[in-house]
């Protein structure tokens, strides 16, 4: 079975994730888009692993999942706190650090 459709799917998913990060204002959606990009890269890693017949890509995918899980914990906590203090989950509102 050819790897091409999987890679194409991965590219499509990554592009959607990118666009989501760049265009959406809601922090939760931005967050989901980041997850989408991570999963797109996971898909690519697993595909190449399978195509090359070794496990390195799959191990890297596990690492990405672990990091993503940790990121979700921290990121969601930050979003929660921002929402509580500012009553908004818009990333454009949280722009005070430039000062």
């Amino acid at each position, binding site marked *: 079975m050819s790897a091409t459709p999987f890679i194409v799917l991965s590219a499509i998913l990554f592009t959607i994730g990118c666009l989501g*990060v760049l265009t959406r204002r809601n922090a939760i959606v931005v967050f989901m888009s980041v997850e989408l990009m991570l999963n797109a890269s996971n898909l690519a890693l697993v595909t190449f692993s399978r195509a090359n017949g070794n496990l390195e890509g799959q191990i890297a995918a596990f690492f990405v999942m672990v990091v993503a899980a940790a990121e979700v914990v921290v990121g969601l906590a930050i979003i929660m706190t921002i929402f509580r203090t500012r009553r908004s989950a818009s990333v454009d509102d949280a722009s005070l650090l430039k000062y």
Partner: protein
Amino acid sequence: MSLVPSSLAALHSGAPVVHAASADGVFSLLWLVVALPALGAAVLLLGGRRTDRWGHWLGVGTVAVSFLLSLVLFFALVGRDSGDRQVSQHLWTWFTAGKYTVNLDLLYDQLSAVFLLLITGVGGIIHLYSVGYMEHDERRRRFFGYLNLFVASMLTLVLAADYVGVFLGWEGVGLASYLLIGFWQYKPSAAAAAKKAFVINRVGDIGLSLGSALIFVTFGSTSFAVVSANADKASSGTLTAIGLLLLLAACGKSAQFPLQTWLLDAMEGPTPVSALIHAATMVTAGVYLIVRSNFIFSLTEDARTGVVIVGCITLLMGAIIGCAKDDIKKALAGSTMSQIGYMILAAGLGPAGYALAIFHLLTHGFFKANMFLGAGSVMHGTNDDVNMRHYGALQKAMPVTFVTFAIGYLAIIGVPPFAGFWSKDRIIETAFADNFVVGLCALVGAGITAFYMTRLMLMTFVTEQRWEPDVHPHESPRVMTIPLIALAALSALGGFLILNGWITDWLAPVVGTHEEKSLAIGALGMSLVTLVVVAIGIAIAWTFFGRRAVPREAPTQVSVFTRAARAELYGDAFNEEVIVKPGYTGIRGLSVFDGSFVDGIAEGTASAFGGMSSWFRLAQNGFVRSYALAVLSGAALVLLALLAVNFS
């Protein structure tokens, strides 16, 4: 210190050579003379308020013990053979640089001995007087600390066996005078006077430091022993240069033309300070320096001519200024300038005059301290008024001050047998023997001295009463009058030091001997001429101030000469025009250059970077999504670069 073998010393026929025996016996206590006042100053200045209650007596005590020690040392010196009266004490090696070593040595010889007695004796009397004079000043302890520092510095100056050691004392005296002139620093005039004295002294200090440097370059050492032994080997040009530099130094410290302007302003200090500066310390330092450097000055006629000219100008300037001042202390200060001028003049006459300069310095120390303390006593009784136009008829209110002051007056104008007669008369005589014009200057100066001192005397103690309504003059306490009486006795009797030529013989081993030149009219004739001139001065003063009433306000319709004398002969205006204004202009130019050019470069660079960063700052807008876009474009760029590298 006895670096010079006595055989080498014996080779000299000109100026005497310093070759001292090392100190033993009682002379090993020499260092204590300096150390005691220095210790007193340290305790008083570091001890703080704890020493407030007894501090002034400690100050008096240290100087008194120093005086007793000086007396013991003096008699021990008298007891030695006349050819063996130079003692040196090695304290420690101060510093070494290559082949150059400066030892902290003390040199005790006939000259230092006389100075030691004058400084600690008159200084001690002034200390005692200050106990009473400064009684109501809450910073009296600090005052005594400074006084002790002053005395210790001056003792260092006259005991040092090395030009570098002299410089140490020289600077110490400058510092102490600054602190004391500005003692009432809450008065802006006092603060300014202190600063002025310090700055003008600094000009003189340049002379001493350059002179010492030139001495070192020429002789490879700055100790008196080496320099005096080798002085005749140096070229006459070098010696003249050294002499003129030392003269500049003397001008600064001794308030000689053209560095004289600080002296009258220095009257802002408390009166005992004026007495100390004018009689025992400070202004005598310049005379000391020239006489001590006689081994240089004796060999250079040109430098001596410079010294004589400076002396002549100053003695006339000081006397003229003294004629016009209504401030009793300023009149006395002008008189000091004039009398120091006599000393410098005498010192410039060479071996014939060195001893006379020191003799006049001694007698002047007595009668000027006497009169300054007397002026302080008058001010003490008249609510610190210094204007003589507000005095008059004080002799009834202050009999002790009047009598002691009168003795000082008779001494300064040179009435026999008081001290000034002996010293000034000999200087005039020697000046005439040397050069008629110089002698004439000295003679005219004596006449003017008689005029302004009589004026001062009449306006203060005689004439009608012109007191302020709330002033009730009274005699000063005994702690102030006893010093006055002691000094008056010295002013009356100090001149007898010259009987039998004692003082000249005593100093001869230090300053050299000379052949007496006799005048055509003889010594007695010269004395008579001088006395006639003095009498004329007194008579003129009597017609102007004794027979007419003295107005309470200074007359404004006065001749151009009076106006010039009131303005201190435009010394300040001269400095202002010739030094200060061009200096200011130059500094303003430099400041403009610094502001426009140097700062322009520095600030231009800074503002260029500032402008650029304000552009870059716009990138930091705080929006996460724009940062994300930047990250993405960066990643894309890296990717493109990799592709370009891999597929090219």
